[in-house]
C-alpha cells in the first residue's frame, strides 16, 4: 500500500477531493514520516504541530462545506526558517534571533494560509542563508537523506531534505546565489528560483536584497508549478515585486521541446565539473536533441568572473541588511556594562556565527571609502556584462542548460574550513541571480555512489512558461524515480 507521505501534491490534492483521504490523514502521514527521519536528518528546526492540526482540520471542514481555496488546501508544506511566521519561532538559523516570534506573517506565508495550506514547520538553513551546505546553522547541521554522512546542500538544505524524504509534500526556500537549486540537485528534488520580483520578499529576512528570491521545492515539476502559482504576484508590501501579470507558469508543461532552441553553456561544461555530473548533463542534452530540440553551444565569457563579482555584491548588501541586528528591537542583547554602542558591538559579535561575520567584514570592506569603486563598483559593472551576455544568448536560444552543481553531495566537514571551495559550489547558479532570471534544477540521475545529479535549465526574465515546459520534458526524459533510502518502505514499515 502506498504511504500517503509519498504522494505528489497533485495526487494528494486529487485524493482530498475524491474523499480517498483527509487533510488530517496527510498531516499524520508526514508527521509519522518526520518522527523517523528527523532523528537522522535534523531538517526541521521547529515543527508547529498545533498550528498544523488546526489548519488541517480547517481544510477538512472547508472540503465538507464544499469550499475549495485552491490546489494547496489541506496540503502539508514546510518553510525555510528565514520566512516570518506570526507567533512561530523564526531564527534564520542564527543565535541572534533564537526564540524570536515574529508579530506578523511574511506575504508568502499569508498567501499559503489564505490558500488553505497546512504549514508543518520551519526548516534548517545556513545562518542567514549564507552557505552551500547547511553546516553554518547555529542549531546543528542537516544531513542528506541519500547518505547521512553528506550535506544536503544549502542554504535551503532543510527544505530540500524534508521534500526529498517526504516529511512535507513541498517546501519553500530562498535563492540568493543558488540556495534553492544547489540543494535540490544534491537531494534529487526539483528546485526553482523564479524571476526576481515574481514572489514578494516581504517578511523574508533579507540577505542580499537585489539577489534574494523565494521559490519552491517539490518532487515533481508539476508540483513545483502548483506551489509557485499559489504565491506569485505583485504585493503592495514589496516595492521590488513586479506590478504586472504573472506569466502562465504551467500552461505548456505537455508541449515538449520540439523546435525549441537549447543553448549549452560552454563555460559550465569543462574544468571543475565532476565527470559523472558532466556525463549525466551531456546525456540529457542528447535526449533533448532526440526529442526535437535544436541544441547549440553558447559562451558566456563573463560567467568566469560572476562568482568573484557575487562574492563582493552579496556581502556588501548583507553588511547593510544585517546592520539592523543590534540588540535593540529584537534578538539577542549582550549583557555589557557600558554604552548602547558597546552593547551593540557585543550583541553582534556574540549573536552572529563565523561565516556571517566573515561576510559582514568582507562587505564592509568592499563598501568602505577608498575601496568602493575598485571592488563593489567594479563588481556591479561585471554584473552588467553578465546580464548583457545572457540577453545576447537569449536572442539565439529559448533556454540555456548546464549542470546545477559542479559535484554531487559532499561529505559533512569536507569544505567547512575552506570558504573559497565552498563558494565554488554555486559557480553555475550565481549568474541567473546576477541577471535576475528564472532558473531551476531537475534531477536526472545518480552517480556511482548513488547520489543525485541535478540538471539546470535557465530562461530569460518572466520566461517561466518556457522554463517549466523544458523542465517537464527533462523530467520525462530522465525518468528519475529513485528515492533516498530514508524514504523507502523498509525504514518506515513497523
Amino acid at each position: 500500500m502506498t504511504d500517503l507521505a509519498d504522494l505528489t501534491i497533485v495526487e494528494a490534492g486529487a485524493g482530498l477531493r475524491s474523499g480517498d483521504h483527509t487533510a488530517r490523514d496527510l498531516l499524520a502521514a508526514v508527521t509519522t514520516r518526520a518522527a523517523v527521519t528527523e532523528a537522522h536528518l535534523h531538517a526541521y528546526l521547529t515543527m508547529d504541530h498545533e498550528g498544523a492540526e488546526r489548519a488541517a482540520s480547517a481544510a477538512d471542514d472547508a472540503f465538507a462545506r464544499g469550499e475549495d481555496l485552491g490546489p494547496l488546501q489541506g496540503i502539508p508544506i514546510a518553510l525555510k526558517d528565514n520566512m516570518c511566521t506570526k507567533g512561530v519561532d523564526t531564527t534564520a538559523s542564527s543565535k541572534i534571533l533564537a526564540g524570536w516570534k515574529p508579530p506578523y506573517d511574511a506575504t508568502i506565508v499569508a498567501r499559503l494560509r489564505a490558500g488553505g495550506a497546512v504549514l508543518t514547520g520551519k526548516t534548517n538553513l545556513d545562518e542567514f542563508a549564507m552557505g552551500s551546505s547547511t553546516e553554518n546553522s547555529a542549531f546543528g547541521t542537516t544531513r542528506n537523506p541519500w547518505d547521512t554522512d553528506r550535506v544536503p546542500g544549502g542554504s535551503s538544505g532543510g527544505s530540500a531534505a524534508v521534500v526529498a524524504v517526504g516529511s512535507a509534500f513541498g517546501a519553500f526556500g530562498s535563492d540568493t546565489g543558488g540556495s534553492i537549486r544547489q540543494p535540490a540537485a544534491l537531494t534529487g528534488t526539483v528546485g526553482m528560483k523564479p524571476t526576481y520580483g515574481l514572489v514578494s520578499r516581504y517578511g523574508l529576512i533579507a540577505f542580499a536584497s537585489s539577489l534574494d528570491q523565494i521559490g519552491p521545492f517539490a518532487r515533481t515539476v508539476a508540483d513545483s508549478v502548483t506551489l509557485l502559482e499559489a504565491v506569485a504576484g505583485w504585493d503592495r508590501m514589496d516595492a521590488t515585486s513586479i506590478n504586472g501579470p504573472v506569466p502562465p507558469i504551467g500552461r505548456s508543461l505537455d508541449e515538449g521541446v520540439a523546435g525549441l532552441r537549447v543553448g549549452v553553456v560552454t563555460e559550465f561544461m569543462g574544468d571543475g565539473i565532476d565527470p559523472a555530473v558532466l556525463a549525466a548533463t551531456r546525456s540529457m542534452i542528447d535526449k533533448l536533441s532526440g526529442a526535437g530540440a535544436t541544441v547549440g553551444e553558447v559562451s558566456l565569457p563573463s560567467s568566469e568572473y560572476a562568482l568573484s563579482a557575487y562574492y563582493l555584491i552579496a556581502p556588501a548588501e548583507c553588511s547593510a541588511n544585517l546592520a539592523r541586528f543590534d540588540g535593540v528591537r529584537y534578538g539577542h542583547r549582550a549583557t555589557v556594562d557600558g554604552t548602547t554602542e558597546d552593547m551593540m558591538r557585543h550583541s553582534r559579535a556574540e549573536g552572529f556565527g563565523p561565516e556571517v561575520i566573515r561576510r559582514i567584514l568582507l562587505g564592509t570592506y568592499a563598501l568602505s571609502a577608498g575601496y568602493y569603486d575598485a571592488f563593489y563598483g567594479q563588481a556591479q559593472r561585471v554584473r552588467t556584462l553578465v546580464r548583457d551576455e545572457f540577453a545576447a544568448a537569449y536572442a539565439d536560444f529559448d533556454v540555456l542548460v548546464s549542470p546545477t552543481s559542479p559535484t554531487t553531495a559532499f561529505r559533512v566537514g569536507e569544505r567547512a574550513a575552506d570558504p573559497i571551495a565552498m563558494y565554488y559550489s554555486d559557480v553555475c547558479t550565481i549568474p541567473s541571480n546576477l541577471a535576475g532570471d528564472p532558473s531551476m534544477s531537475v534531477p536526472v540521475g545518480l552517480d556511482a555512489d548513488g547520489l543525485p545529479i541535478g540538471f539546470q535549465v535557465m530562461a530569460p526574465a518572466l520566461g517561466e512558461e518556457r522554463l517549466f515546459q523544458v523542465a517537464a520534458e527533462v523530467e520525462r526524459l530522465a525518468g528519475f524515480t529513485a528515492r533516498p533510502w530514508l524514504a523507502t518502505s523498509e525504514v518506515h514499515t513497523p
Partner: protein
Amino acid sequence: MPVDIDIAKVANLARLALSADELEAYGEQLLGILEHAERVQALPTEGVEPTSHPLPMVNGFRPDEITPCLDRESFLDAAPDSCDGQFRVPRILGE
C-alpha cells in the same frame, strides 16, 4: 589595486567586538577571498554602467490606502527591553 586590509578598522565600521585573535584569523581569510574577488578588476569595463538591480524598475508605487498598522505592543513584547511604549537601551553617552 593591491589588497590590504586594516581589519580592526573594518570590524569597527561593522560594529563587531572581536578579539585580537579573531581579528587576525578573519583578516587572513578576507585576504584569501579578496585575492579571488580581485579578479573582477581584470575585466575591462570602461564605459560599462553598473547594475545595482536586476530589473528595469523605477519607483514601485502603490495606491495610498489606509490600512491598520501592526500592533505596537506585539513588537515591544518581542524586544530585549522596553519601557513606556518604547524600546529601551543602555545609556548612550560614555562616562
